């Protein structure tokens, strides 16, 4: 008898506070597994955001910082510049990264900071109770868009991966999903690659992960998987936007 799947050492034993079916937990696990598989957990320093994953510092089994809202890439810059041989990552949601922290993420990419960003896009502000995010889809209801997001007054949803992939310093940019098993396995590969790019000193890497928010979307966890597939993926196409050429 052999164990083919067990909880990773990359996570602490603390139980997640996330709502039932929230896919943050899957993404946490993937990051933890990758840190262990690359043998860098003991060198890892993570930066948690403000938002649902604000308590991520309790879950990753490595040194952690809790940053101010949106500032995780600046905090990670400070850490990595002092400790270039450590493995540094930020874990950020879409309100944190795509709204209040746009300057920080863009300029970390612009400087080619050698850390990895895990960007969880669930098209809503979760922690504060379901307000509209820059990533909220047109027509999607939010507590600050009670009639559904309207492009005429709030603009179109922001595609961060596409934007970041125009920046030379962002050497690895990929958008993934965790709404099914194939997507989860692919997401893990992308996370691993993004960390490898950091470890090889090539530059900034980001993995955008489409994620669910059953509570604030107002549907069941199982329905949320389908909603993500049918609504988010058409607007936020999956795939790799940038990857370093071999040998470079």
């Amino acid at each position, binding site marked *: *008898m*052999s*164990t*083919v*799947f*067990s*909880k*990773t050492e990359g*996570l602490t034993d603390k*139980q*997640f506070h*996330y*709502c*039932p*079916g*929230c*896919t*943050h*937990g*899957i993404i946490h*696990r993937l990051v933890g597994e990758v840190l262990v598989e690359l043998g860098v957990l003991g060198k890892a320093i993570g930066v948690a955001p403000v938002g649902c994953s604000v308590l991520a510092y309790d879950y990753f089994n490595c040194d952690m910082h809790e940053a101010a809202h949106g500032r995780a890439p600046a905090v990670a810059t400070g850490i990595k510049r002092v400790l270039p041989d450590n493995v540094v990552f930020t874990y950020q949601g879409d309100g944190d990264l795509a709204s209040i922290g746009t300057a920080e993420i863009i300029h970390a990419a612009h400087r080619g900071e050698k850390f990895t960003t895990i960007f969880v896009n669930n098209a809503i502000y979760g922690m504060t109770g379901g307000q509209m995010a820059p990533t909220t889809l047109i027509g999607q209801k939010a507590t600050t868009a009670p009639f559904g997001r309207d492009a005429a007054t709030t603009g179109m949803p922001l595609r961060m991966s596409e934007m970041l992939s125009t920046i030379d310093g962002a050497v690895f940019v990929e958008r993934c999903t*965790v709404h*099914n*098993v194939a997507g*989860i*396995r692919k997401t893990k590969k992308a996370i691993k690659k993004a960390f490898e790019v950091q470890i090889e000193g090539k530059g900034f890497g980001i993995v955008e992960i489409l994620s669910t928010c*059953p509570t604030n979307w107002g549907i*069941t*966890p*199982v329905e949320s*998987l389908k909603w993500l597939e049918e609504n988010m993926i058409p607007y936020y196409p999956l795939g790799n936007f940038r990857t370093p050429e071999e040998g470079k």
Partner: protein
Amino acid sequence: MAKRRGIVKFTENRCKGCALCTTVCPVDIVVMNKKKINVKGYHPATVDEMEKCIACTNCATICPDAVIEVETIDQEK
């Protein structure tokens, strides 16, 4: 051809009853245990017909709460 067989173990009290695991099982054996309520107040996920498990790890892969462990059973026996 001998099929790979597995055993799925649930840390029941971590389960939040989201049922994501029930949607990805290729042999349809993961179900929510409606007869039971765990410490969190949810019906936890369980497997009724363990002998059908093929140790694919899909359920553990999609579980957001690290509830599930999967083991393979030695086929030589």
